[in-house]
C-alpha cells in the first residue's frame, strides 16, 4: 500500500461518508456542512491528480460560492428545524431498491467495459498546469469561454428577477 | 416558360386577393384564375408543339428533395381541369356575399395553387407537401363560411380533416420507406425500384388508405356527405369537382406504377370494392332528404365507377377514367351550383320543401335538366364517353364487372330523375322563383357547352392523355 493509495482510500471514504450524511441528516444545516466537507474531499482528489487549477476553482466555486448560497437560502427560509415529514415507507424502500439497482447496473457495465481500456501511459508533457490550461481556454475554447460568461450574466439577471418580490399581486 | 408559372400566378393571385380588400377580392380572384386558365392553355399549346415545360430544381440535399414539376398529358389534363373550374367556381359565387371575402377568395386561389401543385409534382415529398397543403384552405373554407349549426359543422369538418390527414400519413410512411430504398423521391427512381411482393403489398396498402379516403371508396366515405352538406357551395364544388380527383389522379400516377404487382394481385378486390361503392352510393342516394347530400352520394357512386376503371390497369380504363374525371368534375360543379341557385331563392335544400319550380323558370329548368341528364351519362354528353370507356374496360376484365357497374345507369337515372321530379316538377310552388340571372346563366352555359362539345368530340382530351397513360402502363407492365 503506497501512501498515495492510502490517501486515496482516506479521501474516498470521506467523500462517500459525507455525501451519504448530506442526504441522511435531518437538519438541512447539517446537510449543508456535510456537503462542504464532501466538496473539500473532492478537491483533495483533484489535488491528488495534480490538477491544481481545478482544485482551486472547485473550492472557490463550490465550497465558497455555492455553499454560501445554500446556507443563505436555508437561513432565509428558516429551515434549520428538523420538521421534514418523511416520505411514505414504500417510497423510501423504492428509493433504496433503485439505488442498489443503479449501482449494480453502472458497476457491471464499467466492469465489463474494462477490456477496452489500455495501459496507463505517461506522455511526460505538461497538460494540466494552470499555464497550459489557460492557454487552451483562451485559444481553442475562446468562444465557449465567452459564452460561459454570458450564461453567468443571464443567470444573474434571472435570479434578480426571480427573487424580486412581486408587487403586482398586492395591487 | 415552364409549368411553375401557373403555380406562381396562382400563389401571387392568392396574395393579391388577400390584399385587394373585401370589395375587390372576388374580381381579383376571378382575373387571376382566368389568367391561370389562359396560361395553362398556352402551356398546353407549348406542350403540343413538343416544347419542354417541365421544371426540375434543387431544394434540399438531405434528404434529397428536388423541386420537380413535370407536365405530361395526364398532368396537363388535370391542371386544365383545375384552372378551368376555379374561375367557374369563383364566378359562380358572385351571387353570394361572404364575410371577410378577401380571406375567402384568397383561400380558394390558394387551394387551387395547392391542387395544381399536386398534379404537377413528381417528387414524392414535394407531392406530399402539396397534397396536404390543399387540405388546409378547404378546412377553413368549410369551417368558417359553411352553413348549418356551427357545432355540427365543426364536428364534420374536423372529422374530415383528421380522417384524410390520418390516411395521408400512411402515404408519408410509404414514401419514407421508398426513399430508404431508392435514395431519392423522384418518381422516375421510384418507378425503377425492384420491390419484393411483401414490400409492394404494404406500400400499396399505405397508398390505398390515403387515396381511398380522399376519393372516397367505401367504406372510407363517411366524412363525405356531411362535409359536402355543411361546406359552403364553393367549398363543396372544390371538394367534389377537383379535390377528389387528386386521389384518382394519384392512383394512376403513384400507386399503380410503384406497386404494380400488388395492383394486379388484388385487382378483383379493388374493383369489387369500387363497384360496391357504385351500388351503395346509388342506393343511399335514393332516399336522401337533403339535395346536397343526395349529390354527395351520387358523387360517391360515380367516383366508385371511376376508381374501378383505374384498377382495370388497361389503357381504356385509364383514358376513360381521365375523361370521366373531367366530365364528372364539370357536371358535379354544375349540379351543386344548381342546388345553390335554388338555395339562394328558397333558403332550403330539403327536397320535400321544394317542387313546382319548373313552371316559373323554364331556362333554369332546361339547364338543370341537361346537367341531370349529363350526370346519368346520356349519349352526347362527355360523361357518356367516360362512362362508356370505363364500362368497356371493365367488361374486358370481366363481363360481370360491367354488368354490376352498369347498374349505375339504372340506379343513377332513378335517383336523379326522382330528385328532379321532386325538386322541379309538380304544381306551381307558392313561393316565387326568380329566373336565373345573367351571371348564373353564364356559369351554367359554360359547363353545358363544355360537356356537350367534348361529348361529341372527345378526341382532343383522349389524344392528350393517351401517350402519358401509355408510359405509365409500360411501367406497370414492365
Amino acid at each position: 500500500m503506497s501512501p498515495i493509495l492510502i490517501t486515496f482510500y482516506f479521501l474516498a471514504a470521506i467523500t462517500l461518508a459525507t455525501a451519504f450524511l448530506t442526504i441522511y441528516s435531518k437538519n438541512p444545516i447539517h446537510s449543508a456542512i456535510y456537503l462542504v466537507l464532501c466538496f473539500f474531499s473532492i478537491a483533495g482528489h483533484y489535488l491528488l491528480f495534480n490538477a491544481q487549477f481545478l482544485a482551486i476553482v472547485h473550492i472557490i466555486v463550490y465550497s465558497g460560492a455555492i455553499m454560501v448560497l445554500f446556507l443563505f437560502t436555508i437561513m432565509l427560509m428558516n429551515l434549520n428545524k428538523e420538521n421534514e415529514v418523511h416520505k411514505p415507507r414504500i417510497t423510501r424502500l423504492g428509493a433504496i431498491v433503485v439505488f442498489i439497482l443503479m449501482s449494480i447496473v453502472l458497476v457491471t457495465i464499467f466492469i465489463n467495459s474494462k477490456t477496452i481500456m489500455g495501459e496507463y501511459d505517461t506522455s511526460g508533457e505538461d497538460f494540466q498546469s494552470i499555464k497550459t490550461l489557460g492557454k487552451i481556454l483562451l485559444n481553442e475554447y475562446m468562444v465557449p469561454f465567452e459564452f460561459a460568461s454570458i450564461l453567468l450574466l443571464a443567470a444573474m439577471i434571472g435570479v434578480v428577477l426571480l427573487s424580486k418580490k412581486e408587487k403586482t399581486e398586492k395591487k | 416558360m415552364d409549368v411553375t408559372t401557373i403555380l406562381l400566378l396562382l400563389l401571387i393571385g392568392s396574395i393579391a386577393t388577400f390584399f385587394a380588400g373585401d370589395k375587390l377580392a372576388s374580381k381579383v380572384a376571378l382575373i387571376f384564375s382566368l389568367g391561370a386558365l389562359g396560361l395553362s392553355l398556352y402551356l398546353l399549346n407549348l406542350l403540343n408543339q413538343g416544347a419542354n415545360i417541365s421544371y426540375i430544381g434543387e431544394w434540399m440535399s438531405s434528404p434529397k428533395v428536388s423541386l420537380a414539376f413535370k407536365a405530361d398529358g395526364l398532368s396537363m389534363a388535370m391542371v386544365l381541369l383545375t384552372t378551368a373550374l376555379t374561375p367557374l367556381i369563383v364566378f359562380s359565387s358572385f351571387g353570394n356575399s361572404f364575410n371577410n371575402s378577401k380571406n375567402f377568395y384568397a383561400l380558394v386561389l390558394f387551394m387551387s395553387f395547392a391542387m395544381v401543385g399536386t398534379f404537377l409534382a413528381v417528387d414524392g415529398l414535394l407531392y406530399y407537401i402539396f397534397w396536404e397543403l390543399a387540405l388546409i384552405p378547404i378546412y377553413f373554407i368549410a369551417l368558417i363560411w359553411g352553413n348549418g349549426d356551427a357545432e355540427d359543422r365543426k364536428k364534420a369538418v374536423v372529422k374530415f380533416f383528421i380522417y384524410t390527414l390520418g390516411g395521408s400519413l400512411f402515404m408519408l410512411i410509404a414514401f419514407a420507406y421508398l426513399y430508404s430504398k431508392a435514395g431519392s423521391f423522384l418518381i422516375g427512381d421510384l418507378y425503377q425500384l425492384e420491390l419484393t411482393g411483401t414490400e409492394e403489398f404494404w406500400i400499396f396498402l399505405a397508398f390505398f388508405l390515403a387515396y381511398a379516403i380522399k376519393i372516397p371508396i367505401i367504406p372510407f366515405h363517411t366524412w363525405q356527405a356531411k362535409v359536402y352538406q355543411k361546406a359552403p357551395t364553393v367549398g363543396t364544388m372544390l371538394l367534389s369537382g377537383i379535390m377528389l380527383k387528386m386521389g384518382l389522379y394519384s392512383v394512376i400516377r403513384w400507386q399503380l406504377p410503384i406497386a404494380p404487382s400488388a395492383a394486379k394481385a388484388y385487382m378483383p378486390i379493388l374493383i369489387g370494392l369500387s363497384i360496391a361503392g357504385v351500388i351503395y352510393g346509388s342506393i343511399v342516394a335514393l332516399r336522401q332528404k337533403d339535395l346536397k347530400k343526395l349529390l354527395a352520394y351520387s358523387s360517391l357512386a360515380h367516383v366508385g365507377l371511376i376508381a374501378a376503371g383505374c384498377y382495370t390497369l388497361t389503357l381504356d380504363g385509364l383514358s376513360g377514367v381521365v375523361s370521366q374525371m373531367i366530365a364528372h368534375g364539370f357536371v358535379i360543379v354544375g349540379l351543386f351550383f344548381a342546388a345553390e341557385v335554388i338555395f339562394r331563392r328558397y333558403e332550403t335544400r330539403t327536397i320535400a320543401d321544394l317542387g313546382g319550380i319548373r313552371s316559373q323558370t323554364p331556362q333554369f329548368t332546361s339547364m338543370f335538366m341537361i346537367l341531370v341528364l349529363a350526370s346519368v351519362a346520356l349519349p352526347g354528353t362527355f360523361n357518356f364517353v367516360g362512362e362508356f370507356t370505363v364500362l368497356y374496360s371493365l367488361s374486358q376484365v370481366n363481363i360481370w364487372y360491367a354488368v354490376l357497374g352498369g347498374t349505375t345507369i339504372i340506379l343513377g337515372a332513378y335517383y336523379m330523375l326522382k330528385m328532379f321530379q321532386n325538386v322541379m316538377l309538380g304544381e306551381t310552388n307558392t313561393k316565387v322563383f326568380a329566373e336565373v340571372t345573367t351571371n348564373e346563366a353564364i356559369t351554367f352555359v359554360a359547363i353545358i357547352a363544355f360537356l356537350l362539345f367534348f361529348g361529341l368530340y372527345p378526341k382532343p382530351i383522349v389524344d392528350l392523355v393517351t401517350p402519358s397513360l401509355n408510359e405509365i402502363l409500360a411501367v406497370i407492365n414492365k
Partner: protein
Amino acid sequence: METNLALVLLLSPFVGFLFNIFLGSKVSRNVSGAIGTLTVVVSFLLSICFFAQLNQNGKPFEIALFDWIQVSNFKLDFGILLDQLSLLWLLFVTGIGSLIHLYSISYMHDDENMHKFFAYLNLFVFFMITLVIGSNLLVMFIGWEGVGLCSYLLIGFWYKNQPYNDAAKKAFIMNRIGDLGFLIGMFIIAALFSTLNYTEIKIALSAGNADSAMLGLAALCLFIGATGKSAQLPLYTWLPDAMAGPTPVSALIHAATMVTAGIFMVTRMNFLFDLTPDIQHIIAIVGAATALVAASIGLLQNDIKKVLAYSTVSQLGLMFLALGLGAYTVAVFHVITHAFFKACLFLGSGSVIHGLHGEQDMRKMGGLRKAMPITFWTMMISTLAIAGIFPFAGFWSKDEILMVAFEHNKVLWVVASIASIMTAFYMFRLMYLTFFKEFRGTEEQKHHLHESPSLITIPLVILAILAVIGGAINLPGSMWLNHFLEPILAAKHEAHHLGTQEFMLMGIALVGAIVGIIWANAKYIKGGFVPKEDADISGFNKTVYNKYYVDEFYTFLIVKPINSLSNFFRTTLEPALGKVVFSFGTLANGIGTQGKKLHNGNIGLYLFVFVLGICAIITYLFIAQ
C-alpha cells in the same frame, strides 16, 4: 353532295328543335308548329330522294363523319349508313312523323307550352333518325337513349301532374334496364370483333370462328335491350303508363316509331341472331307470351288509350315472334302496316278525347258515330285492319306471321291465333263502346260534341288510306318488300307459294277474326253491356283488369326492397360506419384519459420513473453492444 343531303336529312329536325326551344316562345303558336312540321317534312322528302336513288342503283350509301370514341382495340366514328332497311324505316318515321306533327298543330293548340311540345317532338324525330341511320351500334345507341329521353320529356309533358311524371320516370328507368343490356351486348361484340360497325361485324361473323357461347350472350343482351325499348315481357309495364303523355306522342312514339326500335335493332343484327338459335327460341317465346298476356289485359281495360297501348304491346309481341322465327321481313312488314293503322287509331282516339275535352274512359262515351263521322270511319278502317280482315293491310302482315308460326311451331301458332282473336274482340269492344249506342257522358259534354278540325282529320284520312292499301307492299304474289330487303336479309324464307295450306291458314285467321268481332258484337251491341265501375269488378276479371298485378309485383319485388335497403343504409349502416371511424378517435381519447392519470403531478414519482428509464436505456444499450 350526298353527304350534305344526308346531313340535312339528319339535322333538319334538330334545327326545328333549336328554333322551337329558343325562339318558340317568341313566335306565334302556328309558326312554331309550322316550323316543327316543315323540318320533318324536309327530312321526309329527302328520305324519298334517297329511296328513289337506292331503288335505282341498289347501292347503300355509307359515310363516316368524324372520329368519336376511341378505345384501345378500335375506333368508333360517327357514321351514317343509308341502306334498304334504314331508308324503309326513315320513310315511315318521317312520313308518319310529318302527319302527326301536322295533327299536333291543332291538337296542342290550346296548350301554353306548345312550342316546347314541338321542340321535343322534333328532337325525338332527330334522335329516331340518328337511331336508324347510324352505321354502327354506338350511334344507334345515341338515338336509342335519345328517343328514351324524348319519351321521358313527352310523357311528362304535363309536368304539374305528379303521376304523369312518375309514368315518365318509370318509362325512362325501364328503358334504361334494357339499355344496360344493349351496352353489355355491345361490349361483348366489341371484345369479340373489335368493331361495332354493322358491315364489319357481318364480315367478321361470316369468318365463323367466334365463340358461340359469347355470341349467344351478346345476342341475349341485345334482346334485353330490345325488350326494354319495345315493351316486351318482362319490361312492358312502362308502355301503358306512358299513355299519360299527349295523344300525338302516344301515336308517334309509343305506337309507330320508337317502340319498333327493338325490332329494327334485331333486324339490323339479323346475321348475329341467325347464328344463335337458342336466343331466337327465347325471342319467339317471349314475343308470343307478350302477345297473349297483353291482349288478355286489353280485353278488360276501360281507358281508350290503355286499350290501344296493350294492343300495341301485343302486336309488338307478334312481331318479335316473327323475328324469333327468323322471318325478319315479315316482322318488318308488320311494323310498317302496324305503324299505319295504330297511328291512325291513336290519332282517332285523340280526336275523340279532343272532342270530349279530355275524357278517356270508354264507359262515359258511346254514340259518337254521328257526331264524329270522319273519326269514326277512319278508326273503323284501322280497326278492321288490326283485326286482320281481308283485304286490309293488317290481314296480310298478320297472316304472314301466323303462317310462319304454323310452319315452325304449332304451339306458337295457337298462341298467336288466340292473341289475334282477342285483338279482334277488344278492338271492336273499343269501337262499340265508343261510337255505338247512346252517349253516356254528361249533358254538357254532349252539347259540345263536334267533329275535329281538318288539321286533325286530314292525317286520319291519309293514315286510313294507308291502312287499307299498306298490305300491297308485300302481297303474297309480288313480295316487293322481300326483294327490296334481300341485300340486308339474306332471304332464308322463300316466298310462300300459295298452296292449299296457305289458303286454309288465311281462312282460319279470317274466321278467327270474325269470331272475335261477332263475340264483341253479341256482348256490346246486342247485349248492350257496359263495363262495371272499378269497385264492382271481382274474381279473375279483377286480376286481369289490374293487369295481373304485375306492377304491384315489381313494386313489391324490386322497388320496395331497394327503397327499404336505401333506408336501412341511410339510417343504420351509414351511422354505423361513421361510428367505426369515430371509434379511432374515441380510442385515442380513451388513451389520453387514462394517460392523464399517470400525470398526477407527483415529482417524486416522475423521478422514479425517470431513473428507472435511465437504467433500462443504459442496460439496453449495453446489451445491444
